[in-house]
């Protein structure tokens, strides 16, 4: 593998490599060559807990006293109570921190989703459509005509009987 005149392989420190090169011993500093790559790439990652976005705290007072930087917002989960908190700091010391408290309510999982939906639909009133109303009107009109015809026939019959008398 050929090396360029300006490239030197970087020394590898598996255990310790400080962020600040000024803290390193002088002998190590003189021996080390600085390529364009940053030394942080060769750091072994320290075991970190997985950050789920929620900070667990034992009580509301701990959430209120939790240090939060300006313009930052941190969410908390109460370990001993069903609450979530959020603390938001403003962008200056003049703005007081904003603290919100949310209660967690567990929904009942006894009813399945489909049954609850049918119940909801049954509760709605049933309305007739316009076509149904028009049909009823037509029936009423036909009945009225029949009744009027019958009434005319009856009148004619009575007149004829009176004439015979």
């Amino acid at each position, binding site marked *: 593998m050929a090396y360029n005149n300006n490239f030197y392989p970087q020394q590898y420190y598996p255990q310790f490599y400080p962020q600040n090169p000024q*803290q390193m*011993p*002088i*002998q190590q500093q003189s021996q080390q060559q600085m390529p364009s790559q940053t030394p942080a790439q060769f750091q072994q990652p320290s075991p*970190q*807990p997985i*950050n789920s976005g929620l*900070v*667990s705290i034992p009580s509301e007072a701990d959430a209120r*006293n*939790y*240090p*939060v*930087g*300006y313009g*930052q917002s*941190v969410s908390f989960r109460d370990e001993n109570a069903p609450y979530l908190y959020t603390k938001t700091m403003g962008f200056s010391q003049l703005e007081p921190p904003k603290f919100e408290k949310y209660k967690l309510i567990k929904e009942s999982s006894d009813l399945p989703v489909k049954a609850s939906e049918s119940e909801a639909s049954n509760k709605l009133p049933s309305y007739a459509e316009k076509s149904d109303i028009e049909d009823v009107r037509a029936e009423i009109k036909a009945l009225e005509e029949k009744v009027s015809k019958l009434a005319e026939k009856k009148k004619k019959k009575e007149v004829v009987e009176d004439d015979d008398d």
Partner: protein
Amino acid sequence: MMIDNNMYAMLQQLRSNPMQMLSKRFNIPQNINTPQDIIQYLLNTNQVTQEDVNRAMEMRRQIFREK
């Protein structure tokens, strides 16, 4: 491993008076001496990030829980 004299002196100072050493290192004023206030000061001066604080608090919580 050869330890520089300066580093040795720093270690000695850290052992004898860690708070003074940290205050010097991070330019913390003398009137700020509680851990909560120190962390808030470091956050306000952007010397640490909110993620750093959250990680440190989580580690502290786990350590005290294990005890």
